[in-house]
Structures are given as structure tokens and as C-alpha cells.
């Protein structure tokens, strides 16, 4: 019961701090804390509405920071997020595509999807969503997310206490197993990222070289691979570039002449 006691003692502060930290992008997990708070509410050691309110407030504060960053700094915030992401190839693009398709409703589900969670608020800022609309949808999303985990914790409080006791009995062993699994996963991601960066670095062309060759009249093909959102926010392209969605590549790669050099760019 160590874990639950810890939550009881520092109570609401933990709920607020962990959720806020998670929303800001720290590797914290709000869901288990909310589950614990829900379970404790069932036995009267916690007041669920307060926990829900605090969790929602933490979400709104953390997400608003990213939202404002997105509004003010635009696409560079996304590039930064992409750089620190462990999946630079797909992280932001996947989010952008989802956003373009579903608009503000993405905010309702983003908290449930690990990859979407951190990227959605700044993206809402980048595409210029009005503040009131953002706050409304983000609050609803926070309500759904925090409410669900608190509710589940409330409903399954006795089972959760059993799990907590089981963990306490297994003690350090269980902790070590979890740590090793997480460590292996992160290690694998880092290796993948290194490999990706190495291959990517291979044959990059500098802007100067491309410019020189374009003005020299060389038959180059420039392909713009930015998502619609990125390209739309920027509103410009390198002269003559072919704007192509990466998913269209398989279908449209016949359009790309084989006998010329291809220069790809994103943001």
C-alpha cells in the first residue's frame, strides 16, 4: 500500500503536479495517479470532484502553455517537438493529418493517445484556432480523460487495492522488471532513431548547392513533402516544387522522372 499511502499523504498536490508535468511533456504518467485518486475516493479518503477539478486545471494550464507557444512561434515549435520525439519520421506528421481531418475534436481524444497528447495543443495554436474554442475543447478533453480514469479507479477500487498489495509483496522485483522493460523499449527507440538519422544524413544537399544547380538550369525535380498544415501555414514553396503527400508516393511515384536527381524537402 506504499503507493496509495504516498498519494493520500500528498494528495491533491500530486494529482495537480503529475498531470501538469505530463501535459508539459515530462515523462510522467497521470493515468495511474488518477486511477489511485479514484480508488481512494471510493473509500472516502479523497474527494473525487476536487481531484477532477485539479486535473482539469492542470491540463488547461499545461496545454495553454503549448498552445501559446504554437501561436507565437508557429511551425518552429513543431520542428522542435519533432526533434525531441523518439519517432522523428512520423510524430508530427501523423498528428497534423489527424488534425486536418477532424479539427478541434482531436482535442477531445488527444489525451488518450500517447503520440497526440503533447503535439495537439501547440498544433492548435499553429493553425490559429481561437483561444475560446481551444479552451472549450481542451477542457472537455481534460474532463473526459481525467473523469474516465478517476471513474475507473472509483469503480475498481477494491481490485486496485489488491494489485497495489500484490506489487508491495513482489516488492522490488516487480519494480525491476518494469524498469528493465521500459529501459529496453527506450533503448530500442534510441537505436532506431540513430539509424534513421545516419541514413538521413547520407546525401543531403545544401540550400546553396540546390540554388546553384537550379539557376544553372540543371533538370532537377524538387518535391515538397510537407503536410498540408505545414505547407499552408508557411504559404510558400521552392519554385517549381511538386507538393506531394508522403502517402501519395506509392501511387504517384511514376510521375517522378527516373533520369533526374530528386531533391526532397519538408520543414
Amino acid at each position, binding site marked *: 500500500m506504499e503507493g496509495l499511502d504516498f498519494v493520500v499523504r500528498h494528495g491533491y498536490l500530486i494529482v495537480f503536479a503529475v498531470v501538469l508535468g505530463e501535459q508539459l511533456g515530462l515523462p510522467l504518467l497521470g493515468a495511474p495517479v488518477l486511477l489511485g485518486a479514484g480508488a481512494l475516493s471510493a473509500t472516502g479518503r479523497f474527494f473525487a470532484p476536487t481531484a477532477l477539478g485539479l486535473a482539469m486545471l492542470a491540463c488547461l494550464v499545461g496545454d495553454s502553455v503549448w498552445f501559446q507557444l504554437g501561436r507565437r512561434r508557429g511551425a518552429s515549435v513543431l520542428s522542435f517537438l519533432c526533434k525531441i520525439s523518439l519517432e522523428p519520421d512520423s510524430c508530427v506528421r501523423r498528428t497534423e493529418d489527424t488534425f486536418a481531418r477532424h479539427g478541434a475534436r482531436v482535442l477531445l481524444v488527444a489525451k488518450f493517445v500517447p503520440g497526440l497528447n503533447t503535439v495537439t495543443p501547440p498544433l492548435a495554436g499553429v493553425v490559429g484556432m481561437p483561444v475560446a474554442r481551444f479552451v472549450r475543447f481542451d477542457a472537455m478533453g481534460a474532463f473526459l480523460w481525467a473523469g474516465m480514469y478517476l471513474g475507473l479507479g472509483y469503480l475498481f477500487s477494491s481490485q486496485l487495492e489488491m494489485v497495489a498489495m500484490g506489487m508491495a509483496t513482489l516488492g522490488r522485483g516487480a519494480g525491476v522488471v518494469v524498469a528493465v522493460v521500459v529501459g529496453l523499449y527506450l533503448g530500442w527507440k534510441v537505436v532506431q532513431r540513430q539509424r534513421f538519422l545516419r541514413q538521413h544524413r547520407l546525401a543531403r544537399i545544401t540550400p*546553396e548547392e540546390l540554388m546553384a544547380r537550379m539557376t544553372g538550369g540543371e533538370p532537377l525535380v524538387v518535391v515538397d513533402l510537407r503536410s498540408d498544415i505545414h505547407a499552408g501555414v508557411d504559404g510558400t514553396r521552392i519554385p517549381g516544387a511538386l507538393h506531394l503527400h508522403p502517402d501519395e508516393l506509392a501511387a504517384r511515384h511514376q510521375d517522378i522522372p527516373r533520369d533526374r536527381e530528386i531533391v526532397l524537402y519538408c520543414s
Partner: protein
Amino acid sequence: VALRLRRLGIVRVRPLLGGIDGWHAKGFPVEPLVVASLSGVA
């Protein structure tokens, strides 16, 4: 993406260093681009 193109048989592929941001930073020319699917998002 460059790797996927290579797999499709397009060998002479080179990513632009720094992307469009790098291009902008050098002050090289661009032309306007309108993306239709964006309207209605915000």
C-alpha cells in the same frame, strides 16, 4: 521518405539540408502556395 523512394526504384534522391526553413534562412526565392484542404480547420 527518401529511403522509401529508393525502395521504389528512384535512386538519386537527396533530402534538402535544413528543409524549407533552411531555404528561407538563406533568403532564396519562393513562390506562393495555397493549400485548399486547410480551410475549416481553425
